[in-house]
């Protein structure tokens, strides 16, 4: 009688155990396929790094050649007024395009996320800095006569797009973290119109609970544009 019960219990146990083992084997087998993708992923990571390295080498080479070009261009055109004029124009255009480091009078705006105040229950509250906010400030700065602008370490050019990737703001393809520092060269008195009561910084930022600081400066330095101007679709027609 007792032996019969013993056998039944053991049978059930063994049955449960074998099911568990079968499940286990199946899971491990499935897992095998995902291991394959981790391998391709680390392969991908290596490829990304390699490509980045290739780009950096190429960029360094380009910088060297560009510097040499400037010297050589100056040398070949210095003896002739007509050529000198062309060379000056090239220099000026490079400055306008953001192809060199520049400095000048201007302003620095620092933007940061605010803290949500749940006691206020204000519907206008939106303490995070969004890409559109940065885009609007850049537009307002230009309206106030800003000649050159940078966002953190990225120079803003006529090719620059400001977008968002999840919670991160992307400028010239590089991710920008908060605090966001916008530096602008121009008349600091005119740029200061953004900071007046009820002005752009109040409307876009402070009213919504975002943090915006404005500072006039006698000199601010901007980095040069990290990209290149190249055209695949547009052709000159004159």
């Amino acid at each position, binding site marked *: 009688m007792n032996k019969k019960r013993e056998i039944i219990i053991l049978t059930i146990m063994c049955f449960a155990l074998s099911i568990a083992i079968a499940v286990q084997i199946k899971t491990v087998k499935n897992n095998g396929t995902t291991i394959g993708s981790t391998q391709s*992923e680390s392969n991908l990571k290596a490829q990304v790094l390699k490509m980045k390295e290739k780009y950096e080498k190429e960029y360094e080479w380009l910088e060297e*050649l560009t510097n040499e070009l400037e010297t050589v*261009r100056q040398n070949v055109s210095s003896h002739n007024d007509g050529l000198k004029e*062309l060379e000056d124009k090239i220099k000026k*255009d490079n400055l306008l395009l953001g192809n060199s480091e520049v400095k000048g009078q201007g302003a620095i705006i620092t933007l940061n996320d605010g803290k949500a105040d749940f006691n206020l229950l204000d519907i206008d509250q939106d303490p995070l800095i969004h890409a559109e906010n940065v*885009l609007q400030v850049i*537009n307002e700065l230009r309206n106030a006569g800003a*000649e050159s602008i940078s966002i953190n370490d990225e120079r803003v050019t006529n090719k620059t*797009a400001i977008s968002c990737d999840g919670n991160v703001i992307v400028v010239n393809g590089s991710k920008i973290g908060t605090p966001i520092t916008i530096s602008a060269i121009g008349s600091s008195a005119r740029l200061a119109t953004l900071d007046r009561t009820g002005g752009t910084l109040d409307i876009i930022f402070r009213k919504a609970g975002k943090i915006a600081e404005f500072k006039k400066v006698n000199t601010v330095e901007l980095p040069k544009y990290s990209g290149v101007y190249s055209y695949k679709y547009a052709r*000159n027609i004159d």
Partner: protein
Amino acid sequence: MKKGKYVMIVTISIVCFLLMMVIFMQFKVTQKSKEINIDTMQEAELRQQLANWKNKYEETKKKREEVSNTLETYKEESSSDSKTQEALEKELSTLEQALGKTDVEGEGIIINLREKKENELGDDESITPIFANDLIYIVNSLKDAGAEAISINNERIIGITDIVDIGEYVNIKINSNYIRTNEFEIKAIGNSSYLESSIFGKGGYAEQLEISGIKATVQKSNKIRINKYTGEINFKYVEEVN
């Protein structure tokens, strides 16, 4: 009898122990699988990054070759002023194109924006004018999609362009020129499929315009002409750092 009970207890204990081990192993494997799931999500991001770097590399390489060639010309032909002049003019024309000071032509799209008419309005939609911000967002999205030249109502978008609302309604100022209509024609040169989907794709700005009561239409073309910026660009405050 007593011996049988012992055997039973020991056997059951061993079986229970094994079962527990198997369950633990199972937990561990499941946890690991979850981690790998996150990793596969990163794979898409990695592919995106790879494409970005590759694109940047190719652009830089092309530019470097261009600079190399120009440099060669200057070095070789330093004796002949006419050859030097030719090379200088070529360099200058590339820079003027980048500045937006030349007329350009190429593949691209034309976007037309206008306020909807009364009978075109859907539920919950009302007539709204087109504001400067709408144009700013569209220009930004087009740049993000690689637009090489953009104009709004024939006003070329350049590096120092600002787009602002002037009156309460209807008046918009671009490059210090007033646009006294609320109908806009935005032209962009670049890969027409990329440009189109950047505005008219799922989640694009055209959806938002639609809700705001603005009719947006797009037309692709192999040959779009965009006029140059006719003003002078001069900097007063910017100087080069040596």
